[in-house]
């Protein structure tokens, strides 16, 4: 937009400038949504345990960064450690398998053994939202209530900045964040082996189910393992988001979520 629009009201003189042009088809189908897309041009952030460089299932990374907090100071530095846990590499490999030409950036907020502090997680997310990625894959959550309100603010900030935050539901019936917030796309698992099968859940807070059972995923040392969990369902949906956004970059998160709904396997998927 060439000229800034007023934020709090719409004067008659500004009506001509607020036109939004998206060509919506009569029916939103998978064909319209992502056929022919490879995810090219879409920037995806893997907020996780790092990503192993040059893993055959992941390919090149745009950047690899690590977040550290010392006192009140936050540092986001180039990271040479790769992945200390395997989890981030697994997520990156899944996104890559669906959106082969997307741009992947690793932001490491977890260390060896998948451990990390809530503060580092928050600051990593804050950095990623500020950086303006198109998609942030967050296959992790925190049960610490003290972080909930800041996570909520960051999730809302992402939503309005056109960054889609795709977040794993917890694998157990416990309260954790940020997947419970309505401004994110939350993901649980289904049992089908089809990576493009995903379901809209009419009974949130888990909004979508994607492939998460017995998935062959990239792991440390160039290896692959089979694994189950919402952590692996989430990057399937992130990959699908990347495909849609590459073809329709004008979509804001709420529109993208609607496209996901309309193309879900149990709604209009396969049409």
């Amino acid at each position, binding site marked *: 937009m060439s000229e800034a629009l007023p934020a709090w009201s719409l004067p008659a003189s500004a009506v001509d400038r607020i036109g939004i042009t998206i060509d919506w088809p009569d029916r939103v189908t998978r064909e319209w949504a992502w056929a022919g897309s490879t995810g090219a041009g879409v920037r995806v952030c893997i907020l996780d345990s790092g990503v192993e460089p040059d893993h055959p299932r992941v390919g090149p990374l745009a950047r690899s960064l690590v977040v550290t907090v010392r006192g009140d100071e936050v540092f986001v530095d180039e990271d040479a450690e790769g992945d200390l846990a395997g989890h981030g590499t697994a997520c990156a490999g899944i996104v890559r398998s669906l959106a082969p030409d997307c741009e992947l950036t690793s932001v490491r907020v977890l260390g060896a053994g998948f451990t990390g502090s809530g503060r580092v997680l928050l600051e990593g997310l804050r950095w990623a939202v500020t950086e303006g990625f198109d998609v942030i894959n967050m296959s992790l959550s925190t049960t*610490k209530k003290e972080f909930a309100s800041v996570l909520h603010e960051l999730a809302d900030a992402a939503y309005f900045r056109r960054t889609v935050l795709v977040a794993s539901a917890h694998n157990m019936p416990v309260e954790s964040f940020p997947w419970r917030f309505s401004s994110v796309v939350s993901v649980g698992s289904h049992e089908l082996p089809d990576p493009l099968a995903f379901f809209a859940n009419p009974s949130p807070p888990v909004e979508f189910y994607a492939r998460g059972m017995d998935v062959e995923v990239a792991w*440390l*040392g160039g290896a692959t393992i089979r694994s189950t969990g919402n952590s692996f369902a989430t990057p399937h949906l992130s990959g699908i988001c990347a495909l849609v956004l590459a073809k329709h970059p004008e979509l804001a998160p709420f529109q993208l979520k609607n496209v996901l709904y309309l193309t879900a396997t149990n709604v209009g998927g396969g049409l």
Partner: protein
Amino acid sequence: MSEELRAAAAAGVLSVEQGYRTLLQAIVEVARAIFGARASSIFLLDEEADELVFEAVTGEGSESLLGTRLPSSTGIAGWVLSARTPLVLDDVSQDPRFARDVAEQTGYVPDRLMAVPLLHEERALGVLQVLDRTGERFSLEEMELLGLFAAQAAVALDLLQRARRARAALDGADDELAVVARLAAAVDARAEGDREAALALLSALERVLRA
């Protein structure tokens, strides 16, 4: 009077510790039966020592393992504890997180396992493992079932830890009111018939003190 002593006195806690251990043992036995597994165990995280302790075991190698300690980051259990998420492996030998050497020391090396963290409020208290279940490929329904067991085990583990803290407080207490908690525990430990006489005596003492 410290918070632990107050709790100890209120619960007559000295005698309940064994009850919570029995509950944990029952949980692993039911989990083993329901999943048709060869073994099941519960680890408690000892935060001070940063170790996992076998707190309840059933099945293969169960006798010798109770009380055995491992560094808290060991193997699949350590990963599950820190990741706070369940893990299901149909072939542990393929997984780099599996600590084969530690499993061999326990005298039993599983092929398949399910492990789930025991989460209570914001803390991870330990890990429940189910080893070598029989039957078909693992399903998401089983993961949900495991989560339900974990919720139950986490409550039992929390109560056990509270009882132990209370006992430690009583054992070491020079608080003059610690005697009240010890009296409560002593009364609670008496057989049903003897308890009435003890309670009558205490009631009489109470009347004297209030006079």
